């Protein structure tokens, strides 16, 4: 599948604005991911061509950053904190509850395509431990309990 014209136009704007095509590489990946949820292998040479960099250069960047998704993800991505302050406040129990409720492990997506669960470094919400960031706006949720977890999952699209 070729790049949709809207994305093509956005990428051209980005390069024009950034001046240096290399400096625009990460942002171009973020743009495509925002539109499509992830960055497929097919997209790498296409984006590279728009930018005027080699696919190898772009792939080097795409494969480095953990939040550039290289596999399809669910409509709602849950980044569950596995940091120390969350660990000290029951994060493991929340992880277990979440995994059994969703029937998936870290890095997996529910069969209905609704949720992807990923373990994350400290999400900067240690005062709300155990915490997670959820959805396209990376909304901080916490402190998570069995009840708040249910509410969060039910609200997700």
């Amino acid at each position, binding site marked *: 599948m070729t790049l949709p014209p809207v994305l093509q136009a956005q990428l051209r704007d980005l390069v024009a604005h950034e001046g240096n095509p290399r400096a625009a590489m990460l942002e171009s990946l973020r743009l495509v991911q925002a539109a499509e949820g992830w960055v497929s292998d097919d997209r790498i040479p296409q984006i590279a061509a728009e930018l005027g960099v080699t696919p190898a250069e772009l792939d080097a960047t795409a494969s480095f950053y953990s939040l550039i998704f290289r596999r399809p993800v669910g409509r709602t991505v849950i980044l569950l904190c596995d940091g120390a302050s969350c660990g000290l406040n029951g994060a493991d129990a929340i992880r277990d509850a979440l995994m059994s409720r969703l029937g998936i492990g870290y890095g997996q997506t529910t069969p209905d395509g609704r949720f992807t669960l990923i373990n994350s*470094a400290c999400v900067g919400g*240690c005062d*709300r431990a155990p915490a997670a*960031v959820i959805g396209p706006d990376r909304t901080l949720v916490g402190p998570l309990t069995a009840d708040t977890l249910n509410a969060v999952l039910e609200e997700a699209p």
Partner: protein
Amino acid sequence: MTDLPLTGRARPDRTPHSLAEWRALGGYDAVERAFTIPPAQVLDAVDAAALNGRGGAGFPAARKWRFMPAPETSPGPRYLIVNGDEMEPGAFKDRFLLEALPHQVIEGALIAAHATHATEIIVLIRDDYRAAIAGLTRAIAEAQAAGYLNAMTMRVHPSAGRYIVGEETALIAALEGGRAMPRKRPPFPAQSGLWGRPTTVNNVETISLIPHILANGAQWFRALSHTEEGGTKLYGVSGRVRAPGLFEAAMGTTARELIDRAGGVSGSGRLLCFQPGGGASAFLGPEHLDVPMDFGHMAKAGAMLGTGTLIVLDDTACPVEVTARHMAFYARESCGWCVPCREGLPWAARILRALEDGSAQPEDLAALRDIAAEASPRGRSFCDLMGGAMAPLASLLARFPDLIDAHLHRGCPLKGAG
């Protein structure tokens, strides 16, 4: 004037101010004043204020700025980078400053850029801080429309994960679009930074403090502190405390006072130990509760102030488990460049997990010691990631030998407690 210059104007729900609201609170007065003063005098004021960088190492801000070559000797673009990567375990302070007080960040950055003759300001923010990215982007547009940016360009660069991005040379590589690999210093960014040009990298909190020095003077700023290091500090307390949170307080406030403000120790109510400055700082004990928490005193105590965000453990929490978590994090986040970090951190993480499970052997403890010794400056790791990661491990080994022995064969004796 207030004794809470950094956070006094923030709204409890963190909604940022519009430019008009910020102006009504005295916003941009300091910027207007700074722009009428020659850069060298701004630098002198920051120097006299004894402001140490809040990114972790506590390097004096003015001294770093003085490393920037004179514009005459190096004509062309020069950069100020504001570091909002904040991925240190236990750190949640820059999120607050970025979300609630974006105009304060802009003010500080404009003044710092003036002092260092920067031509462009870039604020790197971690991807998870979407509200901060949106809020600061909006605030920059407002400030620009109102003419506060003058000829300066200022923009936000959203990152996309990986803790190493916060290391200043890796951050520069990230801004150049590639993999965020650190490089050796010297040359320091002031000599050769972004695109090979003179560059200053400062933490969000450092930058947010600058307008207050200009507004109220260096003497006032020093008087805010309990110690020789100027200003207030945005401390954080989390882990086993009843009311975790952020607390702006005099630089040099003690852990006892901060833990009290966080509602006291939870769990058993008895303090076992705490990390004063996030995951990469050594464990301190109850005997350190009354040590002033500034960079100098924390270093003397064998730890570091780091991010100033405490992680607290009561005596039913297991420091082996906490360290295992930290090691798993640092191992995962290593860029993989050097052998000690790439090989040593996952190994340490595995051994600590094995201790928790009861499958570790006595010789594993010697391996842990060997790994800790491989960290720079004495060992062979390339950048400071591994050195930081080894601080909790080395202090765990030194401080809790009996508890570690108790883990051999039987696994964690505290599991399920607390």
